[in-house]
């Protein structure tokens, strides 16, 4: 039985999917991830799919489920590293993975999570900057 490892980096969890997902693997991953979020109290989950050649509706649904579970446990999910060919295929199939945040690579994904948390904690207001620029120009 293949298991996908869930790694803790700082206050984020990193999941790198490198095997073909099957029903049982996906269920195990969801279980492991939920346990780990609760155990570690992490607020962010990064799912790296750069090793996946094929993302079909099954994988899409799995990602959406994981994002949903994390959300309930108050953790943001970011899917990173989608290959261009995969993105093109998804668009041609009409799948747009609604409700899932994406980033180009792990680094940008971590930055996105950090920013999201900063905003959620009421640290900054992006709208304010907009007005200053608009007024100046």
């Amino acid at each position, binding site marked *: 039985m293949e298991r996908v490892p869930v790694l803790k980096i700082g206050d984020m969890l990193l999941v790198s999917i490198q095997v073909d997902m099957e029903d049982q693997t996906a269920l195990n991953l969801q279980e492991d991830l939920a346990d780990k979020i609760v155990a570690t109290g992490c607020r962010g989950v990064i799912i790296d799919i750069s090793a996946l050649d094929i993302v079909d509706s099954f994988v899409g649904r799995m990602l959406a489920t994981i994002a949903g579970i994390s959300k309930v446990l108050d953790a943001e999910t*970011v899917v990173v590293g989608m290959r*261009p060919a*995969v993105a093109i295929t998804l668009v041609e199939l009409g799948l747009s993975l609604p409700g899932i945040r994406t980033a180009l690579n792990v680094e940008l994904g971590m930055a996105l999570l950090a920013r999201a948390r900063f905003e959620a904690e009421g640290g900054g207001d992006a709208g304010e900057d907009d007005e200053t620029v608009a007024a100046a120009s």
Partner: protein
Amino acid sequence: MALGTDEIGRFAGFLKEHEAALVESWSHRVADGLRGRLSQTELNRQIEELFRALSEALDGGAGTVEDPNAAELRAVLSELSRSRARQGFTSTETAVSVFALKDALLAAMDARQADAGTLRDFIAFSALIDELGLFTFASYAAAREELIADQAEELLELATPVVKLWEGVVAVPLVGTLDSARAQVVMERLLDALVTTGSPYAIIDITGVPAVDTQVAQHLLKTVVAARLMGADCIISGIRPQIAQTIVALGIEFGDIATKASLADALRHVLRLSGVDTRRNGRKDG
């Protein structure tokens, strides 16, 4: 239409007998047809090569162009039409290079005693030369097709550069009509560039796109959605006033995709999103 063995023999003999005269009058006639656009030495070399290949094919007993013994002749003919096609000669001018041999033959035969046998031979030889001409024509057309295909491919490559505008910002200035094939290339290039440069922002500038219809909009939307799936934000810029009107008239919905009038506006928007201070310092007329 194939020549009989004795006819081939007679033709080969005739060619050998009048070699110098035939080559001379043949290249003279071809030169007339091409009106000095090819140097005389180059032309002579080609004609001599062709003549030699024809003689060899006939010696080998080839009565048609398709004969295995005429392989060398076919190669010479296709090489000739290929070079003519690339140098921009018309199809007629290319075919004349072969058909001129008929006139040269006729002139050489006239010098001899013309009887019914000679006439029959000439008709038979003509048939073979016609075949050669048709073969030249076919290779000429094939060479042109190749040329056009190459150029179309080059154009596709040329017209879709992905440029890096800023740290983390890439742009695709689209010039020319956006059809399905091009939209595909643009999409692939852009997504690849996003991955290789690690840029979270992309700008598609459509200033150079002459018209936007529902199909073009569809392609643009697909590209934006694909970029989003990969985690990059895509902005469409360079929408001219007429195009804005067309887009609204057609009822095309860009949804929550950011659209800007100019590339500068788009870049400013992106920089603001990424937290770069875009206020113009020391501006006097503000």
